[in-house]
């Protein structure tokens, strides 16, 4: 690249409740019910704000996975949780995930615009389509619609929501009659400081990327390798351009699973300890769901058989994320590990989302490298355990990035959209 990229990266924190590793709850730093403790959540917001971070994210789905060993499946409703955190913070962006499958677009539009109003224009809606039978059965249907149908619905859902947000500003009724929704009415919620919430799109399926290019201002991507990230970055920015938008109107932040330590050895030790403190059945269950194969039937000490790595028979009924699966298969093909080694490796290299185990200095190098390579606009950082992992990001990583001119010293903008606009422009490609 001839012209070095200027400006700063975007930094988000994907809270994943207590952290992405199942054993995060075991630390004596946390009360046993920290995941529903208002102070726990408020302190995350305050810590993120101390680091002038751009946003904090909450994943979501209207279902409960087994919480026996892990706080990750436990979900306070994100607009309520972040609405509460907003009252104790003033600048950090608040990204709340909500399903386009299991909501009514009128209710969601009204609630998210209200949330945006109440947070002073710091809100975003992260659109997901939601997979899996347990969610469907909470809404009286036997299974989720097929992937193409979910995305057709998501596209229309997003259009209705955007039209309703517009109606709040114009005072004019929306008359929408589509394949899924019929709406005649308008919102009476006052527009927020940023007008309307940011729309995020999560996931790496072709349908998801197209939706992002058309309608999203942020993408929560899943990337394991830099080259793949560059390719997808250009693809999605290209979709934006072909929709008549500037590539700068859409910011791309892949997730990055983190274990940090003052030395690389300390970081690995932390990661190992946290992994060993969690149940082994998790890794196998995770892999099964992620690649669409019962991994408990694979020989742990043999490489992955070719039939497991081939294309899916049926992408419509596959319950995992296509973007994650693509990342994982690429990674496995690169090194051809045994199943056991792969499961252990993912401790350091991530799983679907890329992983990083090392020092804050090394992480700053990684961020700088991907940033200048044109692979990202920022990262959505996912600490192994939030209660102490977030402080390392705020107190050690952020100062290094600031010294390198890659991050701001204080908030210079107020709303989430302004934070996004103030970040580095898209490099030429």
């Amino acid at each position, binding site marked *: 690249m001839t012209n070095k990229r200027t400006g700063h990266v975007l930094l988000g924190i994907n809270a994943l409740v207590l952290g992405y590793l199942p*054993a995060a*709850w*075991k630390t004596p730093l946390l*009360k*046993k*019910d920290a995941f*529903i403790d*208002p102070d726990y*959540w408020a302190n995350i917001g305050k810590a993120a704000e101390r680091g002038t971070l751009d946003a904090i994210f909450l994943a979501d789905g*209207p279902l*409960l996975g*087994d*919480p*026996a*060993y892990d706080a990750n499946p*436990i*979900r*306070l*409703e994100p*607009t*309520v*949780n*972040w609405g*509460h955190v*907003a*009252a*104790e913070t003033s600048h950090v962006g608040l990204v709340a995930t909500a399903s386009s*499958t*299991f*909501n*009514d*677009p*009128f*209710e969601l539009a*009204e*609630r998210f615009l*209200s*949330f945006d*109003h*109440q947070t002073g224009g710091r809100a975003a809606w992260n659109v997901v389509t939601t997979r899996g039978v*347990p969610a469907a*059965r*909470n*809404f*009286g*249907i036997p299974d989720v619609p097929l992937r193409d149908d979910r995305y057709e*619905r998501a596209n229309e859902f997003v259009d209705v929501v955007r039209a309703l947000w517009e109606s709040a500003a114009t005072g004019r009724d929306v008359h929408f009659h589509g394949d899924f*929704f*019929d*709406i005649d*009415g308008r919102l*009476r*919620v*006052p527009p927020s400081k940023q007008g309307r919430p940011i729309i995020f799109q999560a996931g790496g399926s072709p349908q998801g990327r197209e939706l992002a290019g058309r309608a999203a201002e942020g993408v929560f991507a899943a990337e394991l390798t830099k080259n793949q990230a560059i390719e997808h970055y250009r693809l999605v920015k290209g979709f934006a351009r072909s929709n008549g938008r500037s590539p700068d109107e859409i910011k791309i932040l892949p997730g990055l699973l983190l274990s940090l330590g003052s030395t690389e050895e300390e970081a690995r030790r932390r990661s190992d300890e946290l992994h060993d*403190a969690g*149940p*082994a*059945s998790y890794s196998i269950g995770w892999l099964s769901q992620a690649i669409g194969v019962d991994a408990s039937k694979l020989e742990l000490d043999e490489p992955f058989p070719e039939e497991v790595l081939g294309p899916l028979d049926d992408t419509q009924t596959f319950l995992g994320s296509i973007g994650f699966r693509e990342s994982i298969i690429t990674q496995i093909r690169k090194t051809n590990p045994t199943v*056991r080694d792969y499961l*252990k490796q993912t401790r350091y290299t991530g799983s679907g989302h890329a992983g990083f185990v090392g020092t804050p200095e090394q992480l700053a190098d990684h961020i700088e490298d991907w940033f200048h390579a044109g692979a990202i606009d920022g990262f959505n950082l996912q600490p192994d355990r939030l209660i102490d992992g977030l402080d390392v990001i705020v107190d050690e990583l952020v100062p290094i990035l600031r010294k390198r001119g890659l991050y701001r010293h204080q908030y210079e903008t107020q709303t989430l959209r302004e934070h996004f606009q103030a970040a580095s422009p898209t490099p030429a490609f």
Partner: protein
Amino acid sequence: MTKPYLALGLAGPHLVELTTSPSLLSRWDALPLAFSVLGIDRIDGSAPAPVTLASSAAGATLAGSTKHGRFLIAATPQRDHPYNIARRVASLSHLSGGRSGLLIGVRDAYAPEGPKDAPAWGGAGLGGGAPLNAQTAYDTARAVRALEQSWPYDSIIGNRETGILVEANRIVHVDIDNSFSIAGPLNAPEPETGASVIAWYAEAPADAPPVDDNNPIDLVLGGSGSVPIVVLGDEPPAGAFAGVVLRAGIEQSVNDLLSAAERWLADGFAPTSLGGPLRAALNLPAPEPLPSTARPAFPVPQPHVSL
């Protein structure tokens, strides 16, 4: 005769006014009120005001920016589903220390009706849906109550030796099959303060809830209930009531409402203790637990082994 408690009814514009004014918020928070209804005009048959907020969004702000004030959020199944309502109700209770509850309504003044054959929830386009009537609202209340109870709070044990965070076998399906079909469980535990208070609005006897054996309604507001609603400017009603909701019209301000509340609390109304859970403040009994026959949602957790 016991003095009645005082509650407030806020309409859409008051939600905007209150939540954007630190001085009004602190004044509201200092009043010994029983509770405030956030957006009573959404469900009481009023015409929509020029502005409003989603009730749960206003509730989230109050949970985070106040310490004492209690509130009911207003919701209906017109454009909403009981599972989603239950999530917001339970989350607010966790985050407010039990200061919150739900006022369930039949119709939502601010939302367009859904399709003619299923105007409640049918607009979500997922199939299903129900008529827009008291039975559907009542079934919604029942589902919200059951979902909030589907995961007992004391199943959170956090045993670091066995690696078991939650005795997940004590979490149950709700298997509801009324106006809605809902398997459950809810994805958050029951609040430590117990299942949220659920209120109903009934101005006339015809608006009464269609009560059955499993009545989830703790409190009926309005002329047919134990807590009548008085319009700001009118005199307190004669007779013995548990409490009174003082409701401002949209042309009146939050300041007007708080000033009147301060006067009424000084003369004839009983102060309710500042802060603490809504159920305790209203002396309402704890709801019956779910039947012991409910299906466990997860197996008995086993102490874990490493890879």
